[in-house]
C-alpha cells in the first residue's frame, strides 16, 4: 500500500556547504509531488535522502508517520527512476523488470505474470527479450519505470526522468507517466528543472532555490499567487519593476512609486511584509495588462519593440524603469497593434499587481 511521506526539518551539509536547508514537506498518499528548481538547488540531494542513498545531517523522514531515518536504502521499498536510466545493461527487458521481484523471492509464476502486466502497461511487451542496448532512450526509460513500479513501491521517486530525451519523446512520456501514476495511485516525488513539466504533471509543486523551499502549492496557485519574489521571477514570464513604498493603507494596499515618478496602487503578495519608505518590487504578468490611448490613466509607456509569435504578440514598452515592460497581446483578428514610438497607457487588470519586499537581483 502506498504511503504518505513527511520530510521534517531536513538539512544536508556537505563539509561546510549547505545543500538542503531546513526543508519540511508533507506529501499525502497517492499525491504527485514535484520538486522544481534550477540546477544545484538541492533537488537530487533531497530525493536521495528519501531513497536512503544519503543520510541527512539533521531532521527526520517518515513514511506513514514512521521514522525511517536509519532504514537502509534497500529496505525502504521506494521505486526510483534515474535521469540516465540506470538500466541493467546485462539483463533483458523482462529480466530488468523482474529484478526487484526476484530479490523479494516471489514465486516464478507470479513474477512472470507481473512482468508481462508491467510491460503491457508501458507498451513494451513485444520487446521483452531484447537487451537494453537495442532500445531507444524513451524505451529504456519506460523499462526503468516498469521496473520501479513492479515492486509496488511505497513511494515512487523520479529524478529528471525525461531530461535525456528529445522533445517529442519528452512530451509523450510525460503524459504517460502521469496516467500510469494515477492508475497506480502511488505517492510520487518527481524532480525537474522544467517548470512547464512541473505545472502540467503535478498535484502540488515545491519551488526550491539554493537549498530552501520557496513555496509549496498547487500548480495554479504557484503561477497565479507566487508568495516569494523568487517564485514570481522563476515561474512564467513576468514584469518585475523596482518601486518604493510611499504609503501603506490599513487594508493592505500600498502606494508604490516607480522610477519614472508615476504611482500605482497594489497589494502585497500573500505573506509579504512591506514597510513604508523601503524599496520593493512590483510584479505584473504580461497578459494582465490592457492597452489604452495615452493619458487615459494607468502607466505611460513608449513602445520600443514588437515580437510577433503567432497566437500572441509581445510588445515592449519603456516605462523609464531600466528594463522594458512586456505586454502580451492576443493575436486575434482585428487586434489593434500599436506602432513603434507610440506612447500608450498600460492599465493593469484589477488585483493583478502585487508587491514583494526587497529588490530583484540583477
Amino acid at each position, binding site marked *: 500500500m502506498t504511503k504518505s511521506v513527511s520530510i521534517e526539518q531536513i538539512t544536508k551539509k556537505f563539509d561546510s556547504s549547505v545543500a538542503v536547508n531546513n526543508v519540511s514537506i508533507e506529501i499525502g498518499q497517492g499525491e504527485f509531488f514535484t520538486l522544481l528548481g534550477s540546477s544545484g538547488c538541492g533537488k537530487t540531494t533531497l530525493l536521495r535522502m528519501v531513497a536512503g542513498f544519503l543520510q541527512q545531517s539533521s531532521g527526520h523522514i517518515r513514511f506513514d508517520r514512521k521514522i525511517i531515518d536509519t532504514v537502509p536504502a*534497500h*529496505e525502504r521499498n521506494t*521505486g526510483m527512476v534515474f535521469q540516465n536510466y540506470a538500466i541493467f545493461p546485462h539483463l533483458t527487458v523482462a529480466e530488468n523488470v523482474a529484478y*526487484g521481484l526476484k530479490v523479494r523471492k516471489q514465486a516464478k509464476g507470479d513474477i512472470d505474470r507481473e512482468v508481462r502486466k508491467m510491460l503491457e502497461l508501458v507498451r513494451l511487451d513485444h520487446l521483452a527479450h531484447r537487451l537494453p542496448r537495442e532500445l531507444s532512450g524513451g524505451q529504456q526509460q519506460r523499462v526503468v519505470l516498469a*521496473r520501479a513500479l513492479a515492486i509496488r513501491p511505497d513511494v515512487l521517486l523520479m529524478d529528471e526522468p525525461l531530461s535525456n530525451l528529445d522533445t517529442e519523446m519528452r512530451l509523450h512520456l510525460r503524459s504517460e507517466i502521469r496516467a500510469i501514476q494515477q492508475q497506480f495511485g502511488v505517492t510520487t516525488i518527481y524532480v525537474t528543472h522544467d517548470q512547464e513539466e512541473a505545472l502540467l504533471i503535478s498535484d502540488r509543486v515545491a519551488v526550491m532555490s539554493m537549498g530552501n523551499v520557496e513555496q509549496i502549492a498547487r500548480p495554479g496557485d504557484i503561477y497565479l499567487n507566487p508568495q516569494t519574489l523568487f517564485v514570481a521571477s522563476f515561474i512564467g514570464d513576468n514584469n518585475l519593476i523596482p518601486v518604493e513604498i510611499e504609503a501603506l493603507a490599513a487594508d493592505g494596499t500600498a502606494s508604490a512609486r516607480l522610477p519614472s515618478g508615476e504611482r500605482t496602487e497594489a497589494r502585497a503578495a500573500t505573506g509579504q511584509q512591506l514597510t513604508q519608505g523601503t524599496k520593493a518590487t512590483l510584479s505584473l504578468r504580461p497578459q494582465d495588462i490592457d492597452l489604452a490611448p495615452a493619458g487615459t490613466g494607468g502607466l505611460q509607456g513608449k513602445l520600443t519593440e514588437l515580437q510577433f509569435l503567432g497566437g500572441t504578440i509581445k510588445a515592449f514598452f519603456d516605462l523609464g524603469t531600466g528594463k522594458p515592460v512586456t505586454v502580451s497581446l492576443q493575436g486575434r483578428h482585428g487586434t489593434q497593434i500599436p506602432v513603434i514610438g507610440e506612447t500608450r497607457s498600460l492599465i493593469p487588470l484589477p488585483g493583478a499587481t502585487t508587491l514583494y519586499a526587497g529588490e530583484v537581483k540583477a
Partner: protein
Amino acid sequence: MTTSVTNNRLRGLLSFWPIVTLLALVCSVFLLLVPVWNIVSLSFAGKEGGAGVFENYVMFFSEPYYYRSLINSFIVSISATVLALVIGIPAAYIVSRYNIWARSLIKTAVVLTFVSPPFIGSYSWVILLGRKGVLTQFFAEWGISLPSIYGAPGIIFVFTLQYFPFVFLLVSSGLKSIDQSVEDAARNLGSGEARTFFTVIAPLLLPSITTGALLVFIAAFTDLGTPIILGEKFRVLPVLIYGEFVNDFGGAPVLASTLAVLLLIVTTGALLLQRWLARRYAYATAAIRPLVMQSPRPVKRIAASLFIYGLILLALLPMVNIIISAFLKSNGPVLVAEFTFDNFDKVWRLAGGPLKNTLVFTTIATLMCAVMGTMIAYIIARRPGKISALLDTAVMFSYAVPGIVLGVGLVVTYHNPPLALTGTPLILILAYFIRRLPFSVRSSVSALQQLSKDTEEASINLGAGPGMTFLKITVPLLSMAILSGALLTWSNTIRELSATLVLQSGRTTTMSVEIFNEVANGNFGTASALGMTLIVLTFLPLVLLFTFMGKSEEALV
C-alpha cells in the same frame, strides 16, 4: 528510539561491506604488514652483529662485502634503466609513428620478451655467450673474442633487454594520447622532427617515461634469478639476501632481514617517487585526433627498420635459443647438434609434482586475487574514506615489497607454531596472492571508475542488499575487467621465482625453481625443455587477452 538506532548501527557494521573491508584489512595486516614489521624488528633486535640497536646496519655499512652489494645493485639498476630508456623511447616512437613493416608483430615480440621469465633469458644468454657458449665458440674460430656475459656488463645487458618493454609499452600508450594538433603547431612554427620531439612530444611523454624508468629500476633492483646466474663474484643485494637466508636457515635470519629492509627502503622510495612524479606531470590529455603515421624518407626508414628489427632479434634470441636447445642433445652444459625429445622426459616426470604445483598454486592464487581484488577495488572506488584510503595504500605497498623480502618476512612470521606454515602449499599461495593482488585491484578500479554508480543504486533501490547488488550487478558488469586482471595475474604468478625460492620445500617446489636448479646443475637441455613449457603457459592467457578480449599490449604495464 535510542536502542533502535544502536541496533541499526550494529546491523550496519555486520553487513556485507564492513565485513569484506575487515577481511581485506586482516589479509593485508597478516600477509604484508606483520611480515614486514617482523623483519624490520629482527633487523634491529637481532644479536648477530652485536648488542646495539643499529649494530646490524653499522656492520652492513662498514664491511665492504656487504655495502659493495648495495652499490652494485645501484650500478646495474641505474645502468639498465638508462639503457632501457635509450632503447625503449626511440623504439616506441618508431613503431608508433613510422609505417615500417610488421608493426603489430613487433609489438607481440616485445610482449613475448616482456612476459618470459627473466632467469630463463639469463641462462639462455649463458648458452649463447658463456665460456663454452655457442656464439663464443663460433666467433672464437674466426679469431674474434666476444665480451663475457658474466659480471656487471652481462647483468646490465640482460636487464636492459628484459625490461625495456616497460618503457616501450608505456611510451607507446603515452603517444596515443597526444593530439596531432600539438605536432602540427610545432612543425608549423618551423621546428624539425627531432626538435619537435625534444621540445614538444617528449615533455608530454614525461609521465610515461618516468613511470617506465622507475618500473625498470625496481624490477632490476629486485631481480634475483639473473644476478645469481650471471653474477659470479659480482654480488647484488637480492643475491646476498638469498645467500644469508640459506645460511641462516633454522636460526633467525637476522642479517637477511637487515638486507631485506634496505632493499625495501629503496623500492618503497622509488615507488613513492613514481607516484609523486606521476601526479606532478599528469597532463590530462585525450587525443581527439591521435598522432598520424608517417612515411619517412627511404634512408630514414631503412635506418629505423634496422634498429627495430635488430633490437627485436636480439630480444627474441634467448627465446629462440631455448626452443632450439630444448630439442638438442646435451652433454652437461654443452649442447650437441643432434635432435632429441629426451629433454621433455623431465617435463613428464615433473608433471605430477612441480608442474602440478605450479598450475594448482597459480590457479588458486589467481582466483583469490580475482575475488578479493574485485572487492577491494569496489571499496576503493565506491566507498571512499579513511579505511578505503588505507586499503589503497596497503595494496600499493604490496607492489613495493620485493618477492625475496616478502618471502623472508613470511618465513620469519610463520615458521613457528601455532602458525607454522613454512613448507606448506598454503604459504606459497598466500605469497602469490598478496604479491599479485594489485593487478586485479587496478584492473577493476579503472573499470569501476568508468561505470556509473546509478546502476548499482537502482539495484539497491529495488531491494537487493549491498552483497547481492555486488554479485548480481557489479560483478557481471565488471566481468571483462576481472577476467583480464586474472589473466595478467596468472601470467605474472606462474613465473614467480624469488619468493618461491625462499618459501618452497621439496614437496612444494615449482617449475621456476626446477628450471633454476637445472641451470645451477648445468643441465641446459632439460632446463630449456622446462623453460619452454613455462613460457608457453605464461603466454597462453595473454594470447586470450589480446585476441579475444581486444586488449592492447599497453594493458600489461
